[in-house]
């Protein structure tokens, strides 16, 4: 596939990811493999793309004091270990299995996004003793609502265990499993949507680093893929973030739902075809 073609694909992937709010590049693996790129090299390129996206998207949130560093410090511990194991597994398993796995994760992301309300402030749940000890509480100023939002996360132990699994999948599939880390923050730890999305974005950069290191050792970082992806994804994510303000969130959501469904089905079919 030509260099310029991959740059354009990476711009589209970054754009769709930013508009959807699920982290640029959620679709980069299926887009690359649809054009004949080896799935393991696509996953490795996607891990580097995820570091670039995390590092580009997070500063704006951090300056507004939205991510919770106590939460990220605790969850990274589990996610990073999971990511190392996930990446090592991916290097060892067969390619057709990876298509099924990617397809399943895209479908799971579709379900998560379809059922998730646009923005939530979960009802206050009395935090358990361990969550209080970890310090999952915090406060941020919500500019859209013009008020300070106080929150206290709960279920830290379960959240840590699930983040091991989310790290495993993110390390294994690069950007493919970003939505699941948000689900752990929001659905299990009961953190507000904005804190969940931004803290998750911060964490996945480090999780992707664990994966990228394993792919470097396995010789899966293909310069003719990673160079255009590293150039294109930040551009697409930046454009998407700017246009997001003009987009209706319902339209952005429908675009992503359709994209996830099409690519999920395509990946699973690809798995069947590559097996036969």
């Amino acid at each position, binding site marked *: 596939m030509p260099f310029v073609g991959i740059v354009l694909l990476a711009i589209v992937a970054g754009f769709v990811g930013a508009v959807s709010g699920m982290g640029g590049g959620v679709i980069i693996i299926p887009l690359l493999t649809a054009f004949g790129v080896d799935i393991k090299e696509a996953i490795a390129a996607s891990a580097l793309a995820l570091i670039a996206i995390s590092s580009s998207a997070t500063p704006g949130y951090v300056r507004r004091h939205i991510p919770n560093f106590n939460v990220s410090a605790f969850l990274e511990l589990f996610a990073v270990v999971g990511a190392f194991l996930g990446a090592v597994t991916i290097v060892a398993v067969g390619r057709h299995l990876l298509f099924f796995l990617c397809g399943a994760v895209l479908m799971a992301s579709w379900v998560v996004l379809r059922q998730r309300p646009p923005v939530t402030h979960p009802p206050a749940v009395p935090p358990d003793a361990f969550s209080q000890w*970890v310090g999952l509480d915090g406060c941020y100023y919500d500019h859209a609502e013009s008020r300070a939002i106080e929150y206290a996360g709960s279920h830290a132990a379960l959240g840590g265990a699930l983040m091991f699994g989310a790290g495993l999948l993110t390390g294994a599939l690069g950007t493919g499993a970003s939505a699941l880390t948000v689900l752990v923050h929001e659905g299990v730890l009961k953190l507000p949507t904005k804190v969940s999305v931004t803290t998750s974005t911060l964490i996945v950069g480090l999780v992707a680093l664990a994966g990228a290191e394993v792919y470097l050792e396995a010789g899966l970082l293909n310069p003719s893929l990673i160079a255009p992806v*590293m150039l294109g994804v930040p551009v697409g994510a930046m454009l998407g973030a700017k246009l997001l303000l003009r987009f209706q969130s319902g339209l952005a959501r429908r675009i992503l739902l359709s994209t996830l469904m099409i690519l999920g089905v395509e990946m699973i079919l690809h798995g069947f075809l590559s097996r036969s």
Partner: protein
Amino acid sequence: MTRDVRRALWVASFDMESLISLILQGGVLLSTGLVAASFAVSWMLRLPPAPSENLHARSLTALVILQGLPLAESPASWPRLLLILGVAVLMLTPYTRVLVTTLYFAAVHRSWKHLAFTGIVLILATLAVLTDWL
């Protein structure tokens, strides 16, 4: 001014968020710039837009020092050198963020449990990224 008051003033004025924003934004901009420079040098030297051989090393340190730096001698290898540096800067960006967070929990926030969490992550990341022990 007592030592405790000086420390309280320093803690109050320490802006960790701005420092982390600067590290993340600077890292991704520098890395994108290096990859763009790699592409530009390839174009000027009439080489393919990206080096052909996959990056393969036991650690990031080995990639940069053992494979990258010797490439500086030959202009035809500069695109690969710039790409290696771009990848290294990108990978070191979240690593540096964890390093700074660990120092913050140790020196400013003085939260020993969070220092333990980030410290373990930092040790794992150091072993994996900078050495080949993991």
